[in-house]
C-alpha cells in the first residue's frame, strides 16, 4: 500500500512538473512577444498545478519552487510597463479576474510586489490587502506555501525605519502588524494540518508538519530583523502577540517549536528583560509540551550571554533572573506531575549551570538549587533510572569543577542530601570524584567541621552503608577506594596542634566505623599523620596552666597505642608490629622511655602470638633488632630485657641460616657507634660465636642431607662481621681470631665436594681484597690489619 502511494506521488509530481514546464514554455513566448493577455493566461494555468492535494509537503515544495522561479520572470515583465502598456494599478485589478483563487492570489502577490516597488501606493496598504486576501485559501498545505510566497516577496519591502518604503508615523507598526498577521494565519493553517485525515496516520502527519515548520518560524525571524523593533516594541507588542497565538493554538507541536524559535531568534538581552512574560507562558502550554527542554535551552543561552561579557551581569541581578527562572521551573515541575525524574533533574542541572556562570559568588543560590532537587528526589521512592542518575552526578560535579576548592562545595548544606539519594554504587563513584578533586587541586582541609562534612559525603567509602551488597564488591575497586581514602587523610591538616589533634581524632572515629576490612588501609595514614604532629610538638615546652589540656606527645602516643591495638585485632599483626616500632622510635626521640618500652612490648606480643609464617618472622625480627639498635632512651635494665628477648627469638627462628643471620645482627645491639653508645665488646663476640655455632650446625645438617657441606656463605658473612668490629676497635676480636676464621672457611671450601659456589667464592675473594686494601692503607688501620696473617 505504502509503496504504491510513493510511486503514485512520484507520478503526480512528474505530472505537475510537466504541467508547469508546458505552461511556462507558452508563458515565456507570451513574455517575449509582450503579450500580457497570453502571459496571464498561461501563468494562471501554470499556477493551477499548485492546486493539487495529492502531494506530500516535500514534493509540493519541489513543485512550488519551480513555479516560484517562473514567477520571477513574470515579475520582471510586470515591472516593465513599457512592454505591456498596463499601469500597475490596473494590473493589480486585472489579475483578480483569474478563474481559480490560488493562481489569482499568487499573481496578485506578484503584482503586489511590483506595486510596492513603484511606490504608487504606500507599502502598508498593499501589504494589508494581500495578507487579508490570502485568507481565501484555507487549505493548510496550499495556504502555507501561498503565505510563504507572500512573505518571500515582501521581505525587502517592509516599511521599516530607514527603508525606502518607510511611511509616516507608526510605519514600523505597520510592518510588524503585517508580519504578525501572516504569522498568525500561517500558524493556524499549520495547526489545522494536525486534524486532517484519519487518526492512524497521526505520526505521518506530524512528520509532515515538522517538514513545514520553518515556513512558520521564518516570520519570527523576519520580526527579529526589523530595525524598528526595539526592546520597547518587542515587549509591548511583538512578544505578547506571538505568545497569544502560541498559547491559544493549543497544539503541542506548534507550541514547542515556536517557544524554542522565540528563544533562538530574538536577542538574549530581550529575553532577560521579558523573562517574566516569557516564563509566564510556560504553565499555560499543553502538558505534553517538552517545556523542560525549552527552559533548558533558554537557560543555556542566558548562561552563554552572561559568559560573553562582565558588563551584562548587573542586568541579571536587576531583573532577578535567578528568582524568576527558579520559580518557573518549580511551577512547571509541580504542574507536570508525570514528568519523569530525569526531566526534573535535567532542569535543575541547567539552572545550576546558569547559576554557576552568572552568580558564582552566590553560594546561597547554588544551595537553593540543590535544595529544590533534594525536594524532588525525596518525592520519588528510588532513583533507578540510569539517565537520571547521570544527571544527578552532573549536578554534583558542576560545583566541584567550578570551584576548584572543594572547601566551597563543602559549605553547601544540601550537597550531602543530594548524595544521599544516589544508589550505593553511584554514591561511591561520586565520593571518588570528590577525593580526586581534592588530590588534583592539592586542597587542604583544615578544620574539624569541614572534615566532618567531607566524611559525611564520602561515607559510602568509609563504611558499609545499609543495604550495601558486600558480596558484589570487586576487590580491585575496593582497594582503589580505600587507597584513595588513605591518600585523602594526608590532605587533612592544620598547622595548629590542638586543631590537628581534633582532626586526627575525628578521622579515627570515622575510620574505626569502617570495620576490619578497611583498617589495614586507613590506619597507617592516620598513624603517620599523628607521628608528624608529635614531631611538631617536640619543640614546644610544658603545659599551659589553666587552659584545657593541650595536645601533648604523651596523649597522642596513648591514642596511637589504642589505634594499633584496634589494628592488631583485625587481625593485621605484621602491619601493627611495624607501626608499633615506628611509634617506639618516635617515643625514643621524645625521651619517653616508658612509652617506648610499651610499644616494644606490644611489638613482641604481636611477634610471639600472631606472626606464624617463617618468612614474616624473619623480617619482623630484623625490624625489631634494627629499631632496638637505634634506641638510646632505655636504661640498662630495660635495654637488657629487650635485647635478651630479641636474641632469644633470633636463635629460635625456623631455619638455621635465618637464625645465624638474626643472631649476628643482634651483635650490633651491643655496639652502638656514637659517643655515648654502648660498646660491649665481650657480648658482641659472644653473639658472633653463637652465630658461628649455628653456621656450623647448618653445615653439619647440609652434610647429612646432601652428603657434602653447604655453601660457606654464612661463614663469610660472619667473617665480615668480625672485620667490622675489629675495625671499630673491639678489643675482644683479635687478628688471630680472624685468621682462624679464614682458615676455617678455606677448610670448609675444600670439604665441599659439590660444584663450587661461585657466589660465596666471589664473596670471599672480595672480602680478602678488602683486607688487603686496609693493610695497604698504612697508618693505624694498616697496622691493625697487618696483624691478620694471611
Amino acid at each position, binding site marked *: 500500500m505504502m509503496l504504491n502511494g510513493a510511486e503514485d506521488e512520484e507520478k503526480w509530481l512528474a505530472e505537475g512538473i510537466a504541467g508547469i514546464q508546458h505552461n511556462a514554455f507558452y508563458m515565456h513566448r507570451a513574455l517575449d512577444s509582450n503579450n500580457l493577455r497570453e502571459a496571464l493566461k498561461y501563468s494562471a494555468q501554470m499556477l493551477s498545478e499548485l492546486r493539487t492535494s495529492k502531494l506530500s509537503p516535500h514534493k509540493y515544495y519541489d513543485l512550488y519552487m519551480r513555479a516560484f522561479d517562473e514567477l520571477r520572470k513574470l515579475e520582471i515583465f510586470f515591472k516593465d510597463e513599457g512592454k505591456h502598456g498596463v499601469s500597475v494599478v490596473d494590473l493589480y485589478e486585472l489579475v483578480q479576474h483569474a478563474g481559480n483563487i490560488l493562481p489569482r492570489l499568487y499573481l496578485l502577490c506578484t503584482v503586489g510586489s511590483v506595486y510596492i516597488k513603484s511606490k504608487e501606493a504606500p507599502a502598508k496598504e498593499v501589504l494589508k490587502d494581500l495578507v487579508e486576501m490570502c485568507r481565501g485559501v484555507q487549505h493548510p498545505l496550499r495556504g502555507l506555501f501561498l503565505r510563504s510566497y507572500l512573505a518571500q516577496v515582501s521581505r525587502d519591502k517592509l516599511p521599516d525605519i530607514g527603508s525606502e518604503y518607510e511611511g509616516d508615523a507608526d510605519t514600523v507598526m505597520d510592518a510588524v502588524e503585517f508580519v504578525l498577521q501572516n504569522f498568525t494565519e500561517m500558524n493556524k493553517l499549520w495547526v489545522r494540518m494536525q486534524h486532517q485525515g484519519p487518526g492512524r496516520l497521526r505520526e505521518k502527519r506530524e512528520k509532515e508538519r515538522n517538514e513545514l515548520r520553518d515556513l512558520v518560524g521564518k516570520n519570527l525571524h523576519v520580526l527579529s530583523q526589523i530595525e524598528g523593533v526595539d526592546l520597547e516594541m518587542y515587549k509591548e507588542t511583538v512578544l505578547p502577540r506571538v505568545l497569544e497565538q502560541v498559547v491559544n493554538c493549543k497544539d503541542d507541536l506548534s507550541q514547542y517549536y515556536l517557544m524554542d524559535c522565540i528563544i533562538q531568534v530574538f536577542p538574549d538581552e530581550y529575553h532577560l528583560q521579558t523573562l517574566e512574560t516569557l516564563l509566564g507562558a510556560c504553565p499555560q502550554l499543553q502538558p505534553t509540551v517538552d517545556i523542560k527542554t525549552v527552559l533548558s535551552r533558554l537557560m543555556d543561552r542566558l548562561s552563554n550571554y552572561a559568559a560573553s561579557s562582565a558588563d551584562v551581569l548587573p542586568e541579571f541581578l536587576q531583573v532577578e533572573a535567578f528568582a524568576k527562572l527558579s520559580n518557573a521551573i518549580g511551577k512547571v515541575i509541580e504542574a507536570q506531575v508525570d514528568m519523569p525524574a530525569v526531566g526534573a533533574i535535567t532542569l535543575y542541572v541547567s539552572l545550576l549551570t546558569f547559576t554557576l556562570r552568572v552568580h558564582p559568588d552566590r553560594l546561597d543560590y547554588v544551595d537553593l538549587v540543590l535544595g529544590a532537587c533534594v525536594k524532588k528526589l525525596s518525592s520519588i521512592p528510588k532513583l533507578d533510572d540510569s539517565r537520571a542518575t547521570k544527571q544527578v552526578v552532573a549536578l554534583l560535579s558542576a560545583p566541584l569543577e567550578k570551584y576548584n576548592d572543594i572547601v566551597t562545595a563543602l559549605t553547601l548544606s544540601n550537597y550531602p542530601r543530594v548524595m544521599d539519594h544516589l544508589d550505593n554504587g553511584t554514591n561511591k563513584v561520586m565520593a571518588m570524584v570528590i577525593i580526586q578533586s581534592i588530590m588534583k587541586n592539592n586542597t587542604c582541609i583544615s578544620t574539624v567541621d569541614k572534615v566532618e562534612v567531607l566524611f559525611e559525603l564520602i561515607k559510602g567509602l568509609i563504611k558499609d552503608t545499609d543495604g550495601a551488597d558486600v558480596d558484589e564488591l570487586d576487590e580491585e575497586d575496593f582497594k582503589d577506594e580505600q*587507597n584513595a581514602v588513605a*591518600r585523602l587523610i*594526608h590532605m587533612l591538616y592544620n598547622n595548629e596542634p590542638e586543631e590537628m589533634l581534633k582532626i586526627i581524632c575525628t578521622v579515627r572515629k570515622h575510620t574505626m566505623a569502617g570495620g576490619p576490612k578497611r583498617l589495614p588501609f586507613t590506619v597507617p595514614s592516620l598513624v603517620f599523620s599523628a607521628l608528624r604532629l608529635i614531631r611538631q610538638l617536640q619543640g614546644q615546652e610544658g603545659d599551659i596552666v589553666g587552659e584545657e589540656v593541650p595536645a601533648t606527645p604523651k596523649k597522642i602516643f596513648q591514642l596511637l597505642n589504642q589505634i594499633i591495638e584496634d589494628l592488631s585485632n583485625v587481625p593485621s599483626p605484621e602491619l601493627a608490629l611495624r607501626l608499633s616500632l615506628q611509634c617506639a622510635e618516635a617515643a625514643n626521640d621524645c625521651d619517653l622511655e616508658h612509652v617506648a618500652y610499651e610499644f616494644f612490648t606490644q611489638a613482641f606480643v604481636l611477634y610471639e602470638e600472631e606472626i606464624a609464617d617463617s618468612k614474616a618472622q624473619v623480617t619482623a625480627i630484623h*625490624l625489631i633488632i*634494627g629499631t632496638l639498635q637505634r634506641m638510646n632512651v632505655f636504661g640498662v635494665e630495660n635495654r637488657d630485657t629487650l635485647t635478651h628477648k630479641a636474641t632469644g627469638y633470633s636463635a629460635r627462628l625456623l631455619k638455621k641460616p635465618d637464625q645465624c643471620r638474626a643472631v649476628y645482627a643482634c651483635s650490633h645491639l651491643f655496639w652502638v657507634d656514637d659517643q655515648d653508645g654502648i660498646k660491649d665488646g665481650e657480648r658482641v663476640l659472644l653473639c658472633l660465636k653463637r652465630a658461628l655455632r649455628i653456621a656450623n650446625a647448618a653445615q653439619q645438617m647440609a652434610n647429612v642431607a646432601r652428603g657434602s657441606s653447604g655453601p660457606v656463605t654464612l661463614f663469610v658473612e660472619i667473617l665480615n662481621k668480625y672485620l667490622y668490629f675489629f675495625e671499630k676497635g673491639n678489643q675482644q676480636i683479635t687478628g688471630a681470631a680472624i685468621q682462624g676464621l679464614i682458615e676455617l672457611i678455606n677448610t670448609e671450601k675444600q670439604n665441599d665436594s659439590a660444584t663450587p659456589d661461585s657466589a660465596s667464592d666471589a*664473596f670471599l675473594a*672480595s672480602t680478602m681484597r678488602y683486607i688487603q686494601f686496609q693493610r695497604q692503607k698504612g697508618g693505624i688501620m694498616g697496622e691493625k690489619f697487618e696483624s691478620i696473617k694471611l
Partner: protein
Amino acid sequence: MVLVLAIGDLHIPHRAPDLPPKFKSMLVPGKIQHIICTGNLCVKEVHDYFKSLCPDLHVTRGEFDEDSRYPENKTLTIGQFKLGICHGHQVIPWGDLDSLAMLQRQLDVDILVTGHTHQFKAYKHEGGVVINPGSATGAYSSFTYDVNPSFVLMDIDGLRVVVYVYELIDGEVKVDKIDFKKTATTRSAQ
C-alpha cells in the same frame, strides 16, 4: 648513554598522597631505559605508574610494600656495570655504610642501590659505590626530621657513570651530579 632511574621509599598512600607535581612532570615515558626501585612503593598503583614510564622495572621489597612477592634483593647488569638493589631494612645497623659495603661484597656488584633511610647518599668505597636515592615523596622517616623529596638518575656510558640527584628544596628542583669511573681490570670503582 643509558639512563637508569633510581627511586624509592615513596610510601604511597601510608605516608604521602602522591609524587610532587614537579617530579611528575619531569618523569616522562620513553626517556628512561631502566628503573631501579628500592622498595616501599607501597601499592600496585605506583608499580603500574613506574611500568608506564619504562617497561624494564626492577623492584625489591620494602617492609611496607603491599606486594610480598618482590625479592629481598636483586642484581642486574647494565652495560659495563653490575648493579645490586636492596631496600636496606635487612642490613643492620640501618644506614651503616660499612654494613652496606658488606652486602655489596656479598652481591658482588659495582653499584649498590639501597633505601630505607630516606636520605640521599652517593658513597664510594673500596668495593664500589653505594647510592641511596632518598624518598621520592619526602615521606616521614624515623631516621631524620629533614626529608626533601629526591630521586637519582644514572647515566651509564662505558666505564663511567654520572649520578644526577634531583632534590626538591623549598619548592624548587635542585640538581647535583657526581662522576664515578670504573677501571676495566680491577673490580673496584675508583
